[in-house]
């Protein structure tokens, strides 16, 4: 009896420690220095995080890689997020796969897909003067459209949602691990506003 009294609370604590990370968990936050907001999802061995990128950040990045003003504006005003997708499960689990072309953006005006690498290719074909180095940087700066992650694998990259600065949307996103398909939704994500913060 005494042994059971000692062990039961400890076992409950132990169980709590191991079950909590398996539950879906959405967190939202704001960087106190930059004011940039983020949305983070953790569940079943994946970590997915969206962080706002101000249009000025995107203008500067692609401007430094040879994009002209028109091309810079096209991407900068397309609701761009810095995105991280990571497989946090161990090697005892099957790899994780996703396909961004299956993800959907829901707004009051309807539903649309993300602007993935393949969406942008015909857009940039209209810009004959876009340097090859700029096209290469653009392709690899975006989060891969399809990817497979073994244990500890991850990518950082930009994702574009094709909405005006300051718009709000819900993101329906999915991934697969082995035979298990997961589809989840994050509500009320805010596209970064087109503001021009000045240093203090």
């Amino acid at each position, binding site marked *: 009896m005494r042994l059971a*009294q*000692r*062990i039961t*609370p*400890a*076992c409950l*604590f*132990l169980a709590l*420690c191991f079950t909590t990370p398996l539950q879906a968990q959405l967190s939202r936050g704001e960087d106190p220095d930059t004011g940039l907001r983020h949305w983070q999802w953790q569940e079943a061995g994946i970590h997915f995080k969206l962080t706002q990128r101000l249009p000025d950040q995107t203008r500067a*990045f692609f401007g430094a*890689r040879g994009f002209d003003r028109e091309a810079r504006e096209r991407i900068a005003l397309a609701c761009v997020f810095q995105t991280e997708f*990571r497989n*946090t499960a*161990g*090697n005892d689990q099957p*790899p994780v796969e996703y396909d961004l072309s299956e993800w959907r953006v829901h707004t009051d005006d309807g539903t649309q897909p993300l602007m993935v690498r393949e969406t942008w290719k015909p857009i940039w074909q209209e810009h004959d003067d876009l340097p*090859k*180095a700029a096209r*290469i*940087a653009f*392709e*690899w*700066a975006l*989060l*891969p*459209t*399809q*990817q497979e*992650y*073994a*244990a*500890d*694998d*991850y*990518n*950082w*990259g930009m994702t574009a949602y094709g909405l005006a600065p300051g718009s709000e949307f819900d993101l329906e996103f999915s991934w697969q691990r082995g035979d298990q398909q997961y589809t989840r939704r994050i509500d009320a994500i805010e596209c970064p506003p087109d503001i021009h913060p000045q240093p203090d």
Partner: protein
Amino acid sequence: MLSKPFPFLLTLVLLVTSAPLAAERPPLINDPAPAPSFTLEDMDGKTYKLEDYKGQVVVVNFWASWCPPCREEMPSMERAWKQLQEEDIAMLAINVGEDADTIFTFTADYPVSFPLPMDQDSTVINEWPIQGLPTTFVLDKQGRIVYRVVGGREWDDPELIDMLIELQNQ
């Protein structure tokens, strides 16, 4: 009353939950395919041919200077390289889409002594099974891709160093 079992279990929990922080070996690729060949120059005009490394384990990393995880893993690659070259293991970090001036500037902040061949028109990366940067491949002595690692790592982690040395000693 809980003084004896509780610290023991707490220690156990901390040990188990902190385990994923240690590097995990990437899964060995079953039925490995030969790595696509390449001939590339570095910023000094020196030529690197993949075929020249037959008989050695080769670490092939693809990177760009604007890619944060690529930058982050570079110092650990340099520390790993200092151990691996003594084992006759090769390391090549192929820059994607940038010019010699950009790489030269980068190496002022991230000094490395392993080769940095340039894939300026992205011909080589498009022939390899890569979706995002950085991606690192480990080739066995027969030139086959036996490991693929997506995203940055601490390459001087003993687990990863041991993995490479074991492969070289096979």
